[in-house]
């Protein structure tokens, strides 16, 4: 999943592209190779994007969680036969491990087809080439999962092996007899090629058939001296071993040529298998996160109902809390205001996530959505600091804005999180207003979250606001932060609605500070100052 060009590193981090990429990652090496090559659909490819999302949703609906998980298990455990196919296509003789990789791949294709039978959106992985090669390799199946260049592949193999086994037995017998005779003469066991004889244990000279390798004052390092019978048996064994090697290579050559003949078709089967892995991963994601295919339109707009930012939803779920979905409708650049911790930044992330998913033809985390395809998704404001370097926070924001404007992508989706918050409110507001006007002129779509007042009216853009606290929540009795956050969440109305009045939106900052545990005297003084 290659989003380069659509988002840069800052935007990718802000909308947690890495999480999304991991969540959609296929399980097999075949899928991984396909996944790396997948890029976003671009404006003009709306129907392709929509078709892909619908295909994924259809797979999810047709298969259900259990079947998809069973397929994922196949992808996770499949052997990678790509290099075997490549080697065969170049005429390299395949090894037995290569042949097992191919057999495992064919088995996986067949099991996958068994599970995906009746799902029109997943074309069969098995074709004539797979069937034909699998049939040839079947003779080598050893046990449930193993492979052996079995005698059944060729009669001459069986004959050569029988002769070798007999020659090896003959050689073992000859050496065993010699070893046993020496052991009896020396009164000790002889194991291995070299052994020590202590001079003190030796009555007279060494028996015949022993060669001294090294002499020391108290012992002799010896080895068995091969006699003519032993050498003849060894020679016979080596000759039969050579015959076995030749017969085995002949079988490997025949099997390699079959794979070579079908190499192009097997490559195509590997690609289909990889595609299925990518689609199944996306379908599993769709089910796990209750996603739906968005309606993809040509205009630069975004509208969704009950959108969720999945990484945050999962984090909350771990703590036993619920994510409150939100709904937004944008066809232009708009301002978003609301209290601290009211979900403005999360709203921007949901927008980014939905637009990104739609661009890759993935069902989106909402109960319904309509969106255009964009040439660039740009995140400005908070989060830009991840770039680091010598520039101040403000300078980094400005440089990013300059770059986005200079690139001048025609269909731009822009997400601005408290742009220019690090300069004076007066000049920051002026810059924000000018920027929004520029984006509006360019018919960009997006949202600008801000605490600055009267920006929307001055820029001539629509204004959305988070409803905010339903009242001042009661401070929890303990200083437990989790309890404070729970109280806050229960009191916050995260609904986003278009507002007409462009008054300075309250941030509820003092109430939140109190809730989060600042001491009462300080809070009181803040309220006095405010009045």
């Amino acid at each position, binding site marked *: 999943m290659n989003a380069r060009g659509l988002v840069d590193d800052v935007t990718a981090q802000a909308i947690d592209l890495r999480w999304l990429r991991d969540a959609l990652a296929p399980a097999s090496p075949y899928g991984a190779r396909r996944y790396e090559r997948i890029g976003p659909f671009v404006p003009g490819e709306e129907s392709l994007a929509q078709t892909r999302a619908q295909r994924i949703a259809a797979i999810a609906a047709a298969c259900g969680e259990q079947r998809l998980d069973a397929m994922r298990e196949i992808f996770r455990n499949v052997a990678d036969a790509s290099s075997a196919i490549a080697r065969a296509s170049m005429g390299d003789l395949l090894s037995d491990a290569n042949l097992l990789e191919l057999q495992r791949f064919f088995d996986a294709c067949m099991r996958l087809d068994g599970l995906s039978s009746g799902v029109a959106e997943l074309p069969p992985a098995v074709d004539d080439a797979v069937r034909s090669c699998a049939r040839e390799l079947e003779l080598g199946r*050893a046990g449930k999962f*193993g492979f052996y*260049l079995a005698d059944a592949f060729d009669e001459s193999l069986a004959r050569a092996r029988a002769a*070798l086994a007999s020659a090896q037995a003959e050689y073992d017998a000859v050496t065993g007899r010699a070893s046993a005779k020496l052991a009896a003469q020396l009164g000790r066991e002889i194991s291995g090629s070299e052994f020590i004889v202590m001079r003190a244990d030796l009555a007279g000279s060494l028996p015949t058939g022993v060669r001294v390798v090294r002499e020391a004052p108290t012992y002799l390092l010896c080895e068995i001296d091969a006699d003519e019978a032993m050498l003849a048996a060894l020679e016979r064994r080596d000759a039969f071993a050579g015959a076995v090697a030749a017969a085995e290579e002949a079988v490997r050559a025949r099997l390699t040529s079959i794979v070579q003949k079908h190499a192009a078709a097997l490559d195509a089967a590997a690609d289909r298998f990889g595609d299925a892995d990518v689609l199944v991963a996306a379908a599993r994601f769709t089910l796990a996160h209750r996603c739906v295919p968005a309606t993809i339109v040509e205009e630069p707009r975004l509208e969704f109902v009950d959108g969720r930012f999945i990484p945050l939803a999962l984090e909350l779920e771990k703590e036993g809390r619920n994510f409150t979905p939100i709904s937004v409708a944008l066809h232009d650049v708009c301002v978003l205001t609301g209290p601290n911790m009211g979900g403005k930044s999360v709203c921007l992330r949901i927008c980014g996530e939905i637009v990104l998913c739609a661009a890759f033809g993935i069902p989106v985390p909402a109960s319904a959505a309509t969106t255009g395809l964009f040439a660039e998704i740009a995140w400005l404001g908070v989060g830009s600091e991840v770039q680091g370097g010598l520039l101040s926070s403000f300078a980094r924001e400005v440089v990013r804005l300059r770059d986005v404007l200079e690139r001048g992508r025609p269909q731009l989706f822009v997400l601005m999180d408290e742009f220019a918050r690090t300069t004076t409110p007066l000049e920051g507001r002026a810059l924000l207003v000018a920027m929004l006007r520029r984006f509006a002129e360019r018919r960009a779509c997006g949202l600008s979250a801000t605490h600055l007042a009267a920006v929307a009216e001055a820029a001539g853009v629509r204004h959305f606001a988070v409803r905010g606290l339903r009242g001042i929540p009661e401070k929890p009795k303990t200083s437990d932060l989790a309890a404070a956050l729970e109280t806050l969440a229960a009191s916050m109305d995260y609904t986003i609605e278009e507002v007409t009045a462009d008054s300075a939106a309250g941030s509820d900052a003092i109430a939140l500070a109190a809730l989060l545990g600042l001491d009462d005297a300080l809070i009181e003084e803040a309220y006095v100052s405010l009045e």
Partner: protein
Amino acid sequence: MHVAVGERLLELSRATGAPSAIVVGTGKNVGKTVAMRAMYEAAVARGLRPGITSIGRDGEAADVGDAQSKPRLFLRAGTIVATARDVLPRSPATEILELSRLTTAAGALVFGRVRADAFYELVGPPTASGLREAIDGILRFTPYAIVDGAIDRIAALAGGTDAVVVACGASASPTMDEAVEDVRALVGRLCVRRYDEREPYLRIEGALTPSRAAECIASKESRQIVVTDPTQIALTGRAALHAMARLRLRCERELRVVAITVASLGRDRAFEPRAFAHEVSKATSLPVFDVYSAEEAA
């Protein structure tokens, strides 16, 4: 006393009930592979059809590190082998049982069954955790595994239930006295006893390093010093002996060291075999065997 060394080593290892035996050494060329092969042959003679692997590379004709000739491993039909796929003999063909995702210096690890007697090179995973996985893999196909533990890689013993055979030899130390001290230090570490929960103890998180041991000695620590298992005692040679003499080193999980093998022949020197075995036996109080002379130290 002449004995069938391989059989005795196998007997002692299996008496622990462990499903695997690992041979570790005080250094290179101290007879680990010779000891392992003796055990292997004894196991085959008993009809055990054992599994076999190594940490890192072993079994090649010449040692990759110092080009010294190495014993080759002639494996019998029925043996389970875990080695790198790139060093599997092309012929006679091996039954490939499993393609592992573990990697070695010579490519991915495979588990195979020897179908016809042949020479094999063992190249196992280079890491302790990889070796443990390889042993577990072998035990899926056969009930008994024998492992060449390479050069003093005792970390591989952590987390396992193996019987341990320690190999020492003339190649690793310049004099017999030093060779005896080295094996005494290694065996002393590996044989650290389990701690007594009723007595005061100081639990060490991670490894007991030389500096931590020095601190304990300096502060005259009298409590039991407890590490997870003996592989966490990161002290060797004299430093280990010094610490063991002054501290009450203990562990949570004991290792099962069952025997020592001696190789009195080194590339550059040789020790008097019986004297060497005798001194090692005296210093360690464990059964000591000379594989070359087929003797057990008195």
